[in-house]
């Protein structure tokens, strides 16, 4: 029942805003629907805390320690982003960058996007998971091209085609998975339910599953932004409106990685080898290194932080690939911390770009003089994402690195060099933007920066103290994922 509300709220919001998304009150309605979704997720979380894992509607949906915190995180970031988007999109509309039809599209698709991500996270059916992932692409593709500039159209086309092709590979993987499952579980609706598959994973045909995993990893990995399949990501993040960059980076990438990890559990059970882990480590490490070296060449601030997302998703994929209790714990913590930090950074970046009238880093200077809150938000957010203690990202990166030193020492130099290069690149570019001299004016409107500092406070808390429920879920999920 809680799941019904959790999924129903954004769906209802999508329909309501499709009709009223251009009105004066639409941003508030958008925020209210996101708040309702967040409340539903709290009720669901409370139920999981009390009763343990739940399943609903004939096992079509289920919530276990692995996805419960992702559901809450998704609902939370979707809500704070809607709070950020209220003043941000009003300013954009006043600047004449958006017509009423586009505002309607934006608000409606924002809610539908939340719906598809929550559906992907809560469904028990590997087929529906695929459908929801594809739907998540479809809902955001027209948002990337919302401003209709040539660059944004190109970015959206690239996003559409690359993710469409990628996700088609994942469908092939799902078909192969079903092909193997059907022999054990029989034809029919239950053969794609993850819980059923997980129960019989030792009996699934290993050759079919290893081939299926390659397709699933390539398919969903495209959406995670793993190199060399990451081409769409910097463009889509840079050209879309900032609230969309924040949810793409903070949430969608997580959800796609969630799909990969769910598949990995099944394949590991069937193969009894480290095949899937090795593949994920390879892709992850390559993404970390490649993204770190691209960081220093960026001129557009949103592109730079998009590459930083690729780097962090690579790191998380690498950690999941290593497996084991500590690395998986660290990967889950990093997922949470990255998603909060990166969306906070995008909020600050959005206002900084709005103030300066450009996304080019050369044009953004001296934020701390004119708008101190934006400046501090960007500075603290960048320090947090670079893994400075005492923020949460430090804790998870530390755990990942120490585990890598123990178990895969060959990978440590690559990781350390990449993290160092990333630090130098981002720090060197953020510093003049925050502290430099400027002749620019103050942002005429009050910026919406409460979400930035709420997120950063949470990340700080994760670095110092992890709430016992969360730690418990991480541990249980780590045990589940192996």
């Amino acid at each position, binding site marked *: 029942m809680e799941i019904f509300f959790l999924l129903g709220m954004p769906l209802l919001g999508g329909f309501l805003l499709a009709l009223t998304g251009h009105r004066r009150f639409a941003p508030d309605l958008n925020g209210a629907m996101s708040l309702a979704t967040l409340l539903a997720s709290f009720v669901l979380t409370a139920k999981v805390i009390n009763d343990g894992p739940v399943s609903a509607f004939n096992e079509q949906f289920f919530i276990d320690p692995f996805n419960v915190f992702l559901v809450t995180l998704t609902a939370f970031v979707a809500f704070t982003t809607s709070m950020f988007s209220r003043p941000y999109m009003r300013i954009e509309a006043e600047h004449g960058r958006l017509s009423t039809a586009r505002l309607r599209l934006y608000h409606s698709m924002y809610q539908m996007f939340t719906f598809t991500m929550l559906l992907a996270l809560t469904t028990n059916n590997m*087929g529906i998971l695929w459908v929801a992932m594809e739907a998540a692409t479809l809902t955001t*593709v*027209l948002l990337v091209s919302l401003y209709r500039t040539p660059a944004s159209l*190109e970015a959206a*086309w*690239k996003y559409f085609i690359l993710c469409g092709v990628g996700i088609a590979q994942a469908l092939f993987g799902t*078909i192969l998975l*079903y092909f193997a499952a059907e022999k054990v579980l029989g034809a029919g609706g239950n053969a794609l339910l993850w819980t059923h598959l997980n129960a019989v994973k030792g009996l699934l045909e290993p050759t*079919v599953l290893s081939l299926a995993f390659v397709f699933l990893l390539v398919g969903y990995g495209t959406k995670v932004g793993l190199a060399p399949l990451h081409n769409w990501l910097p*463009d889509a993040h840079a050209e879309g409106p900032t609230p969309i960059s924040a949810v793409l980076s903070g949430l969608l990438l997580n959800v796609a990685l969630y799909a990969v990890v769910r598949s990995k559990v099944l394949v590991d059970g069937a193969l009894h080898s480290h095949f899937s882990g090795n593949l994920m480590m390879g892709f992850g490490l390559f993404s970390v290194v490649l993204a770190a070296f691209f960081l220093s060449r960026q001129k557009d601030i949103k592109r730079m932080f998009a590459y930083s997302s690729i780097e962090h998703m690579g790191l998380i994929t690498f950690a999941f690939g290593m497996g084991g209790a500590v690395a998986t714990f660290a990967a889950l913590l990093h997922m949470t911390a990255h998603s909060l930090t990166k969306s906070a950074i995008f909020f600050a970046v959005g206002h900084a770009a709005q103030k300066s009238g450009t996304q080019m880093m050369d044009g953004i200077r001296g934020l701390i003089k004119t708008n101190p809150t934006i400046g501090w938000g960007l500075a603290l957010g960048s320090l947090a994402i670079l893994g400075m203690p005492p923020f949460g990202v430090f804790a998870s990166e530390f755990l990942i690195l120490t585990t890598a030193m123990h178990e895969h020492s060959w990978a440590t130099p690559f990781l350390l060099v990449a993290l160092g290069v990333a630090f130098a690149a981002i720090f060197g570019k953020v510093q003049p933007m925050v502290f430099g001299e400027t002749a620019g004016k103050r942002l005429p409107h009050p910026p919406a920066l409460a979400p930035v500092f709420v997120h950063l406070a949470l990340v700080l808390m994760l670095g110092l103290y992890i709430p016992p429920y969360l730690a418990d879920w991480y541990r249980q999920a780590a045990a589940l994922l192996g």
Partner: protein
Amino acid sequence: MAIVQNMPIAQQLINLFAALLLLIAFAMLSQRRIMSLINLFAMQGLILTLSIADSAWLTHQPHLYYSAALTLLLKVLFLPWLLHRLIRKLEIKWDVETLINIPTTMLIGIMLVVFAFNLALPISELSGTILRNTLGIAMASVLLSFMMMITRHKAIPQVIGFLAMENGLFFAATSATYGMPMVVELGIALDVLVAAFIFGIFFFHIRETFDSLEIRHMEKLKED
């Protein structure tokens, strides 16, 4: 030969349809006219429908009849109609694309087919169902459509490649297994439908902004 003679006629038919699908995939790879490309796509959908209906008859799976009907409606009637309407509105009905080096493309295509068959070989041997070569053929047509998307410079042929890839995947789903569960199939069909609409919207946006549907104009976003 003995194997072929022992096969029931329905099964031989599925192999025939599979072969036809592969043939159409090659035809699409080399087709330069946009109108003929859409007709080929509709034909591919029709053969897919027939093969699904045939599997349904062979395996007595009633829900496969529904997916055959769904395929007929979506891929044979609706999508080709939509594409025809689009090219009429965009006034590019008689567009001819310059494709470089069709023979090379075909040769690479043949290599892709060999690769797909080898990849599918261990799985085909496991299968007791109607599939023998069908999974290999399905994989080959997915790869060929993929290649078509890479070699084309115009938006509409790229999209047809995308939809053809979806056809190949559907063929894999219905011939390798007894069709995916109905709810999943409906979801996939919905996604394809929405994707087709979004592609349509895109064509107009791209044309409005770039005055052409050549993808080449949109290669500004590059790492330098």
